[in-house]
């Protein structure tokens, strides 16, 4: 028809971001569009680049510790833990068992805050506002717990090389237990409000499918990977800290669509609750700090790669030490960076509305991509 009329078929460029309600911060996506269809999507990142890796080379090991909380502020403690574990490996330090338990409990609490925030923010992307506030209400209770222990609401810098600085008390354990039962009582609300909603199902089923092959080619990890049916969770496949001592499952999806990723995240929250419950029950006594932690952290020459499972996937730290008080090179392998790199492929030939749904469903934290 267009050809008959002699009109040239034209595509146009749409600039989504850097300030856009659905980009969760400062991401820019250059879209080549034909009507409402996306022909090509090109993410432009770096709007939140703060030079963490450069900073690491100019700071000593301890001074770099607070930075990790600002790389991914939603699951700060996992990043903290990864760095501590990497340096402990370099220094050959053994962390006491109680400290490992405390790390696991706080890390899982933090994972819950991250998933809850994702849940709320994602539903807001889809246009439902109320779940966002429900989640934030639950999240506040979690933050109370973590705030009381670590003194911070968001950017926790709680772990130290060799252990944790503050012990947890009976009140904290009781608070954890209370929260576990509180959140469990809320699942029904969440499922009734969101999971069973027809519109939600139609928006998410068979949209934004990630295949197993794509996962390998792009190095996708975390709930995005597990939604595609691959049971890869570093807590299980490369056990660290006290995780081998707990009984939990790795929820997986089958289709690899948005709905599966959503279900996986919700199921993961339940598994986190299980871990917290078991850790509270089995909490051993003992010291919380390793013996003989050197005052001056000066690891021997060598390199180490340490990975942990964060709320968004595998976070890896590659540290090269040349026997100095400063790290020679620190590479942060952030999960969102890899997860985001598949985005052009996902967005292609989709509608703008699906782009928003896709972007939210891979759960990106922009400063973590940009570092």
């Amino acid at each position, binding site marked *: 028809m267009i050809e008959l009329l002699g009109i040239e078929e034209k595509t*146009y460029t*749409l600039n989504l971001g850097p300030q*856009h*309600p*659905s980009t969760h911060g400062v991401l820019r996506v250059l879209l080549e569009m034909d009507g*409402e269809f996306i022909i090509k999507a090109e993410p432009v990142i770096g709007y939140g680049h703060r030079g963490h890796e450069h900073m690491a080379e100019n700071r000593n090991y301890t001074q770099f510790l607070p930075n990790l909380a600002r790389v991914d502020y939603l699951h700060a403690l996992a990043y903290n833990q990864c760095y501590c574990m990497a340096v402990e490996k370099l220094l050959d330090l053994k962390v006491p068992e109680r400290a490992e338990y405390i790390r696991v409990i706080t890390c899982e609490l933090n994972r819950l805050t991250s998933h809850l925030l994702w849940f709320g923010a994602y*539903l*807001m*992307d*889809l*246009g*439902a*506002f*109320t779940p966002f*506030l*429900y989640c934030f*209400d639950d999240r506040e209770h979690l933050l109370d717990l973590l705030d009381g222990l670590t003194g911070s609401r968001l950017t926790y810098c709680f772990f130290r090389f060799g252990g944790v600085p503050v012990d947890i008390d009976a009140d904290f354990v009781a608070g954890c237990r209370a929260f576990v039962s509180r959140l469990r009582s809320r699942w029904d609300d969440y499922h009734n*409000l*969101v999971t069973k*909603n027809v*519109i*939600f199902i*139609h*928006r998410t089923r068979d949209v934004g499918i990630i295949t197993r092959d794509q996962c390998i080619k792009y190095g996708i990890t975390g709930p995005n990977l597990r939604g595609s049916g691959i049971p890869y969770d570093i807590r299980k496949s490369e056990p660290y800290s006290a995780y081998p001592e707990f009984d939990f499952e790795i929820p997986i999806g089958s289709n690899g669509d948005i709905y599966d990723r959503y279900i996986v995240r919700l199921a993961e929250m339940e598994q986190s609750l299980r871990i917290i419950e078991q850790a509270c029950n089995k909490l051993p006594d003992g010291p919380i700090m390793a013996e003989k932690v050197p005052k001056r952290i000066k690891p021997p020459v060598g390199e180490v790669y340490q990975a942990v499972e964060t709320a968004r996937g595998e976070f890896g730290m590659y540290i090269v030490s040349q026997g100095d008080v400063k790290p020679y090179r620190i590479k942060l392998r952030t999960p969102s960076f890899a997860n985001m790199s598949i985005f052009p492929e996902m967005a292609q030939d989709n*509608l*703008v*509305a*699906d782009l*928003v*749904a896709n972007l939210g469903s891979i759960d990106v934290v922009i400063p973590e991509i940009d570092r």
Partner: protein
Amino acid sequence: MELVAQLLGNEGARMVVGLIAVIALVSVNALFLIWMERKVAAHMQLRPGPMEVGPHGAIQTVADAIKLMGKELITPAEVDKPIFWLAPIVIFLPVLLSFLVIPFSSTWIIKDMNVGILLILAFSTLSVLSILMAGWSSNNKYAVFGAIRSVAQNVAYEIPLLVTVMSIILMVGSFKLTDIVAAQSGVWFVAVQPLAFILFIICATAETNRAPFDIPEAESELVAGFHTEYTGMRFALFFLAEYTNMFIAAAVATVLFLGGWQGPILPGVVWFLLKVYAVIFLLMWFRWTFPRLRFDQLITFAWKILIPLAFVNLLITALVLKLR
């Protein structure tokens, strides 16, 4: 007093007084509705909502309105100026005129036309024109998106809306709103035509661009949709029109299905407003519960489900009326 009554008997004077009253009602109603929306939303979301400005934030929206009046009116360099300026006014006029025929009670009606319902439906179609004007003239891709979506959506949902209304009109045999209300003195039509009521509410939600059908201004996709470039009072007019549209949609629903002003003990106006606000509350409830539909799903929903259902409903109504 007699003079007033005489004046009101006069057609022209009645129109003037009515229009002034309508303008007052529209502004007060919009201010109240926005406050109500914020309170309803807040209470559904475990928070108090506006609290500090006036008791329970009662004059919060007044503060908002005064502030918006004092804001700078930006006309971006690249816009189509005359259309850009005209759009907020054009969206407001048909909304205002629709009030002419709404029967607030058996006597509180400015002009009881024999084509009342058609007039409202015709005017409501006009608002899509101004949305198109606003979006197109803004010279902003998001705004154009919003405008185009709005046109497609309104065209799609106008049809089931009209067909649904037709089934009521078949039953009454008149386009006159007062007649329709009078026909419900025994049983409200919502009991006779439940499917039509549901269809009407869905279509009305879509026609007023409310969530889950708020595609033209889908916040997470299109920033602010067709009014992305509008500032200050011009933006406020769009807001005002949206809430007034909601009122009209609810009023029509009340007239067609909920028995209009009819009800025991209380005066008719009170009953009418109570029912209208109940319907509005329902629309608000939708908005704060549902996620947004995708654009193609929205259109599919209209053409493949709503329109056939509306026609089936019309056919059944006609058959029943014929056989009775």
